């Protein structure tokens, strides 16, 4: 079955099981996303993909809301832009986005100011460098949940990581703050692959960025051992 409805005033026809995000992308309409990833279950938590759907009380997340006949969807109305911009400004006031180039692009596009919230508490954390494969810098983490999801039912069923705290003080953490080698982590690397901000980084990349040469790295016991 297909559905026909209006998106930004343009008639679109789509499969009834498709989300507004999928339909928008099929029709060349850009809806930004942060937490969404093709391989993880959509949780609709970053709310950057919200759109205005006529008749709905509040803005709707395009990543999970499905298209329906006679819907009227606005993907860039004033309301949508105001919500996206404020969310982006709050993100910039909370974490280190220096390696999140997609989000920097979004901020530019939406006219979001990184200094909108002066005197705001940031989520800062010391770098956790406790295993040979990857480094965790949660000052850069924007809590998209993807790492927790791929570590659990979305991919690896390893369940090495979960959450510390709640609310603004949430952080990704391990059982009683154990180091990665002390957890069930199998170093599969999928969490690193889905991290959008560089909060999780391959150890080798981390060292290269520090200016350590490939030759030096190979003797640091962070991968292959130097052959004698």
């Amino acid at each position, binding site marked *: 079955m297909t559905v026909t409805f209006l998106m930004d005033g343009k008639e679109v026809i789509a499969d009834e099981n498709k989300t507004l995000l999928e339909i928008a992308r099929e029709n060349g309409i850009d809806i930004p996303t942060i937490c969404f990833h093709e391989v993880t279950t959509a949780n609709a938590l970053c709310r950057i993909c919200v759109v205005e759907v006529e008749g709905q009380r509040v803005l709707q997340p395009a990543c999970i809301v499905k298209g329906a006949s006679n819907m009227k969807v606005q993907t860039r109305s004033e309301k949508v832009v105001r919500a996206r911009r404020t969310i982006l400004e709050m993100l910039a006031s909370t974490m280190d986005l220096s390696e999140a180039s997609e989000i920097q692009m979004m901020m530019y596009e939406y006219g979001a100011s990184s200094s909108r919230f002066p005197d705001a508490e940031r989520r800062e954390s010391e770098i956790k460098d406790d295993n040979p494969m990857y480094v965790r810098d949660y000052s850069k983490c924007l809590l998209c949940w993807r790492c927790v999801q791929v570590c659990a039912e979305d991919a690896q069923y390893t369940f090495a990581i979960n959450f510390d705290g709640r*609310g*603004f003080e949430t952080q990704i953490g391990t059982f009683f703050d154990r180091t990665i080698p002390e957890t069930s982590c199998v170093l599969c690397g999928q969490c690193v692959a889905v991290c959008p901000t560089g909060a999780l980084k391959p150890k080798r990349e981390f060292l290269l960025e520090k200016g350590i040469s490939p030759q030096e790295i190979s003797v640091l016991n962070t991968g292959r051992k130097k052959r004698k």
Partner: protein
Amino acid sequence: MSEIDLIPLKKELPKFIPLGRSGLLPALHAAQKLYGWLPQEVAAEIAKSLRVPLADVHGVIEFYSLFYNEPVGRSFIRVCTDQACALKGADRLLGNLCKHYDVEPGQTTEDLSLTIERSPCLGLCEQAPAALVDDDAQTNIAPNFQSYDLGIPRSIVYGSIHELTANCGNGTTTLAKYGEYLAYQKALKMKSEDVITEIKSSGLVGRGGAAFPTGIKWEGAAKAEGLQKYIVCNADESEPGTFKDRILLLDDPHRTIEGICIAAHAIGASKGYIYIRAEYPYVIPVLEKALNEAREAGYLGQSFDIEIRVGAGAYICGEETALFESIEGKRGFPRVKPPFPTTNGLFDKPTVINNVETLCNVPLIISKGALKYRKMGTEKSPGTKLFCISGDVVKPGLYEIPFGATLRELLKMAGGVAGKKSLKAVLFGGAAGAFATSEHLNVKMTFEDLRAAGLPLGSGVVMVFDETRDIRDALKRLGKFFAHESCGKCYPCQMGTQRQMEILDRVASGGVLPGDFFRLEDVGWTMTESSLCGLGQTAASAVLSAMKLWPGLFGESQKSNVEGRKISKVSKNSKVPNTVKKSIVKKTTSKVVKKKVSKVKSKAIKKVTKKAAKKK
């Protein structure tokens, strides 16, 4: 840390094992009772027995504020510092207590005998200031804490009608006093569709705050496919200023149980849950006793039974889907809707979840008949409503009135503003509500009139502020409350409640920054319009209402919107020039902001000690 003896825990755990992951919160509660807190070995043992991943157990402990992963006192004093108690000097009381025991809020004495904490609203607002001393309610506490009431809190019940509160105000009504479940027996003789029709015709809508038509909810679950269905009673009453469910459950537990039984029959549920907040520990034995009486009388235990589940300090678990997650042994994260609980609720099965007061209306409707029930109240708001009146009134308490009385009449019934002062404001509907002023005195207490006046009925909170009160202090507390209670799942609420708190702190201290008014508006608007659940969507409700009523409170900042932010057209697919990109990077990385000193101390200390405990 091998000194921890796991044998007592191992004796307790077998009864939770058949529950699987759903047994996690009950097991953690049991373990905390044994050890006083939840050491790593204990958490690991629970994880192993219930077959829950270690990290997930950790995540659950971290989520709920009444689970502790660090040694805490053998005894606890939790002083409520939310709105109603604050009006009665809770801050001074807490200060005096802490001074007396030589601790800071959130800290434990050196000999581990006592921990003193700030607590979100304890639902004892009509007897403020109040505290929870281990499992006892301590109410009407003098600032020097030399005089107070201790034990099961009194029920102060007034009003012009006593339908829902017929058995309230004189201690717990046993089954012998309550009498047979006549309405349930009547319902059992009716077809389940007819029971639903009766509820639909009664016009009953939910009393927990969302005002959803109860009959339609029941019909949805009844029609949903699936053999296993659930009925859940939401007794996680945590909306600041609300205490009606506490009184209904303490004084008349059978009315709620009978309501649950009727709902179960109507939708075809074989299992019911009562999810009660942990801040009502004294209600739990009363409920257990009542359930046993109902079992002995044959109402429960055969084709249908009810289990009590206890929360662990999380306002968000009053949100229906977060409550399901909590029963399932998870962090209390609200789910995305749709799908709705009527088709995909608890354990993904069709579920009806109703508030205590809603369920208390059910036996009334069935025994009277919808027609007669509708004679009470108004055409569009039939029945009676419980109002939780607290703050600066002569007679705070629980008031039952038929829908339709005006706010003026309601306040008059409560003796008017205390101390012969005049009215400054009424916080309506709770923290997630809105402020009213004397201009609203003629508004009728009905869903339709309140909606027209822009006031949410919410859970029936009417908190009165006299002319001498500083609304900025109230706003500051609201800000703290939501920042503390946000689950952290969706971005608008996770960060918005924090930013809102910071701005409201500045407003209260007189240190507003240029642009704060618009910042606060943007944050509030964004939370309202784009949050995932009802908490975020209402976290700015009272603040935004105050901004409309008293813009002057928010400093001169409203005039100094230096940024001149107008919604501008956004260019699509625009590329970020390298120079701009660099400057953004520079800004975000170079901006180092000092931690705010005014941060809730107890929270900060708890966080620090939690972290310290982990390192051990």
